[in-house]
């Protein structure tokens, strides 16, 4: 069970070669921008067709390069939260959420939508358009819209990158809760080390289109698989980060915990 990916894809001069498997847990794809994390996520969702390999979700083959089997995106039952969230600007909050309930009977869909509105603290905002929402509210609408269909896996492509630090923390907590409750593979892409270390059950490290290491954060910190992994997770990295970010502080507090625990 779970989600397993083993794919390669050439795009111009960049080549992606990714292989990993996750159970019903929260996995984080971590690496620099342009290392192939988002491409992998898009391939899992069916938005990008790999050249070779296989993608399997709970025993069902979604893509197989050998026999050319490609399950189209709309039949994959995979929730996807886009970096820019991709809320439909011409629909209200409620319409956005209901739009996600494809294949659910109309009554059931209404009921689930009310649940989602309550669950994601959107009460009173049902008839607003996305443009009239705050960043955090928009995030929650995107999650509600994706989860109303009860997908078999949830993918998130740097969804919190536009939020400020406190809000990002809140969203991480919410995502954790969602994963525990649904018990499905949740895969998050980020290039924020704090986020990766804090959230991941399983950390999947990307370097130049390849997976360098695939382990728990504790193992990664304790035993980096290579020099590039060591550089990738080294705390010095934080010193070059955005000043308005509380990453430095948090990483400084998290890293020793990870190491001490190991």
């Amino acid at each position, binding site marked *: 069970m779970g989600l397993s990916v083993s794919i390669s894809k050439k795009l111009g001069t960049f080549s992606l070669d990714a292989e990993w498997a996750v159970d019903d847990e929260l996995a984080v794809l971590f690496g620099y921008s342009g290392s192939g994390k988002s491409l992998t996520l898009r391939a899992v*969702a069916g938005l990008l067709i790999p050249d070779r390999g296989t993608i399997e979700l709970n025993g069902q083959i979604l893509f197989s390069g050998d026999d050319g089997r490609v399950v189209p995106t709309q*039949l994959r039952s995979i*929730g*996807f939260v*886009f970096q820019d969230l*991709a809320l439909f600007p*011409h629909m209200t909050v409620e319409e956005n959420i209901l*739009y996600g309930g494809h294949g659910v009977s109309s009554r059931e869909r209404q009921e689930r939508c009310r649940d989602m509105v309550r669950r994601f603290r959107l009460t009173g905002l049902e008839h607003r358009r996305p443009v009239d929402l705050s960043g955090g509210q928009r995030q929650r609408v995107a999650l509600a819209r*994706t989860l109303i269909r009860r997908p078999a896996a949830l993918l998130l492509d740097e969804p919190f990158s536009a939020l400020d630090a406190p809000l990002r923390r809140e969203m991480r907590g919410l995502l954790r809760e969602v994963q525990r409750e649904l018990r499905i593979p949740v895969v998050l892409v980020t290039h924020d080390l704090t986020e990766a270390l804090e959230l991941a059950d399983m950390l999947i490290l990307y370097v130049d289109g390849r997976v360098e290491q695939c382990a728990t954060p504790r193992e990664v910190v304790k035993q980096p698989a290579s020099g590039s992994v060591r550089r990738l997770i080294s705390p010095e990295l934080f010193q070059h980060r955005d000043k308005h970010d509380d990453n430095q502080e948090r990483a400084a507090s998290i890293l020793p915990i990870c190491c001490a625990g190991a």
Partner: protein
Amino acid sequence: MESSTLFSLRLSLQVAAVATILIFAAGVPIAYLLARGVFRGREVVDVLITLPLVLPPTVTGYLLIVLLGRNGIIGGTLYRWTGWSIMFTWQAAVIASFVVALPLMVKTARAAIETVDRNLIDASATLGHSELWTVVRVTLPLAQRGIVAGLVLAFARALGEFGATLMLAGNIPGRTDTMPIAMYAAAASGDRSGANVMVLLFTAISGACLYAANRLGRRTA
């Protein structure tokens, strides 16, 4: 206003309205396929549809006669089977307006559809929706203003169609003399007052159409 002028005005509006409905029906799928479809000969289709925009209307009219005339490729068959020919009827004026005005709509609508955020279309697919449903619920509503702007432009162009219409529908007073054709006849025969009225009417209607198209086009979200 003279009754013949009134007839021409009514006929022009009728021809342009019917042509615009046909342009909507044909133009939206064509614009969508050109904007999003991946198929061989896409650019050939684009060129064929755009040609009437740059060809002399007489050439377009001549080609339409070759196609639809009593001895034409399509028109000939139709005439043999039904004894009816579209030549010199108001429907011929509709066809001429349709062909000449279609590219304006397709160009504008294609541009509007191309600006719809790719992520929104992908998001719709990840939410389980087919491409057709996505077109109906996401792509077209978001491209709506551009499509309407294209239709208004096409309507204005259809209203002003002269050359191809004259060749295909002729100038039969009380039957096929649309405003531009009646206008030509008035000017040619020295009927200054009739011509003046029509010029004023025409300028007002066309100006209003352009103003509407601009406003719609500018606020495309």
